[in-house]
């Protein structure tokens, strides 16, 4: 399992690897789950109370389904760790952060200077998401 390179949370990380969505439904004590691109994120909504970690896998960076999965979970009120794993590249992490990811475990570790640039590059955003940044239109109309 790849190392967590960035984590924007203060709570203790969950040590266990995530179980599959299928296994998660049967193991009533699991608190970590791993979502593949084709998995239905909404299947987790009834169990959000006991989930502390959701790993969202990006087997290839161009498969963008994980962005929707992340937003759906956050929109449903999930507050635990949301970790991007797999082919997580420096030019994707800012988008991921906006969709609610707060931990990153890339297969290939990111260059720290490039990653810092990427996280901080865009101070303004056009769309509201659950990341709490005020969109430009909100600032325009105070």
């Amino acid at each position, binding site marked *: 399992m790849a190392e967590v390179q960035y984590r924007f949370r203060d709570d203790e990380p969950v040590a266990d690897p995530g179980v599959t969505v299928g296994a998660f439904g049967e193991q009533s004590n699991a608190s970590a789950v791993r979502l593949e*691109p084709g998995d239905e994120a909404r299947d987790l909504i009834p169990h959000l109370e006991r989930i502390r970690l959701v790993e969202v896998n990006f087997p290839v*960076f*161009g*498969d*963008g*389904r994980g*962005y*929707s999965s992340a*937003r759906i979970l956050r*929109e449903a009120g999930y507050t635990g760790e949301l970790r991007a794993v797999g082919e997580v*590249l420096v*030019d*994707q992490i*800012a*988008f*991921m952060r*906006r*969709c609610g990811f707060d931990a990153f475990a890339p297969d290939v570790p990111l*260059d720290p200077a*490039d990653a810092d*640039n990427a996280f901080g*590059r*865009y*101070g*303004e*955003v*056009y*769309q*509201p*998401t659950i990341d709490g940044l005020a*969109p*430009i*239109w909100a*600032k*325009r*109309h105070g």
Partner: protein
Amino acid sequence: MYRYDTYDQAMVDARVEEFRDQVRRRLEGHITEDQFKPLRLMNGLYLQLHAYMLRVAVPYGTLSSAQMRMLGDIADKYDRGYGHFTTRQNIQYNWIKLEDAPDILADLAKVEMHAIQTSGNCIRNTTSDQYAGAAADEVVDPRPYAELIRQWSTFHPEFSFLPRKFKMAVIASDTDRAAMKLHDIGIQIVRNEAGELGAAFYVGGGMGRTPMIAPCINPFVPLDQMITYSEAALRVYNRHGRRDNKYKARIKILVHELGKDEYTRQVEAEFQHLLGQNIEPPLAELERIKAQFADPPFEKIGTVPTFEIDRSDPDFALWVDNNCLAHKQSGYIAATISLKPIGGIPGDASGEQIRLMADLARDYSFDECRVTHAQNIVLPHVRKDQLYALWQQLDAAGLGTPNLDLVGDIIACPGLDYCSLANARSIPVAQKIGQRLAAKQQEIGELKLKISGCINACGHHHAGHIGILGVDKKGTENYQLLLGGCEGADTSLGQITGPGFDEDGIVDAVEKATQFYLAQRGEGERFLDTYRRVGMPAFKEAIYG
């Protein structure tokens, strides 16, 4: 026209710096070409057959004269002196050096322009009616809605890695001049019986190898829910669009496979959920944008001596009849500058010509011009009594070709002369057809001819009254002929006539089709009307018989 505020400017400036950094990492060898590819693609930079090609976004086709002038300067400074206007109302430069690309983006940012999302599997530049704000038949100017979509779609965090590219168009009149139903999402701004404005959503149209006409999935989305509805339509696509086969990855396949009703049901469910997420900009934002698209200060009749067109010069009169459209404001007219001189490359203009058009936009059209999806330039607001002086300058610069919507006004993609995906050349075929039929084109009348160099259909061949598709036939270039395509309110897809032709053969075949039309046409019939009445078998007989 829309002007950036400090927020919009900060966004494109940040993008320039980001791309500069990405190019530096590539040139210094920190990233491989494979890793660089998705980054340059999201900046509109393609590696073509001979050089890099840069595609610059022209949102809804509208340009100020300063922007147009910059496009001419870029052609001279960084390219070989030409720019190529595209069917997406954008401009492309075919001879770009990678190390220059960040400087080009910086120059563009100085005039509030960019190349953001002009390629890649994301929401592309939004197109619109080239006569927006000028056409007599529009319900309202569609561009403020397109601008709202531009902002919403720019760096959208959820929709930057869609199954495939995603194209949107916004119009506001029943005469669809933007091929709206052939887009991933087409929006028509409409007025309902209560007099309120809303957005009709057409989803799942497109060309490419499986052309489809978009069905209407919601005839009236209130304006203060338009972005939320778009987000719902995109989310269903992002989650469920096919990713196993790039040729089945466009939204049209999803809509087709699910069926319109099931797709619509899923969008409506997602929409209900998203309504609770407060993602819609307030109507005040739409009003802010609308205010920037207010009419220019048209002069009223009586304040100037005459608003009439002096038609005594027959060449000018011909150009007026072919290239000008009635304006909503009396005394004014919308003039189209054809970039289709006989034997020329469709959509190409030299740096000098681009700068001249910029000057003419400033002097004759309230500082504004438009790029059309037929690869021409429109001066939207010309005072009729100044039209002759305008035309004289155009004519002197080789920009006075009187052939709008005639057979010489060919849409052609770059084809095998530039494009690495091409099966066959498009440009020489366009040039030969243009030359062969030049003397007849006025007699033939309206005939939209469109050429693509491969099945990707960038030249919109499915929507041509006559369409030509370049294919590979055992290693040689071959051309299929299609008849009966049409965009607009009565959108239809062209049908293949039969066996393909070589380069000279396709020119002959087009000529035969036009001769047959001239022999058959009834009173007032365009080529398309005659084709629809007479049918494919008769045309086939005339072409192959």
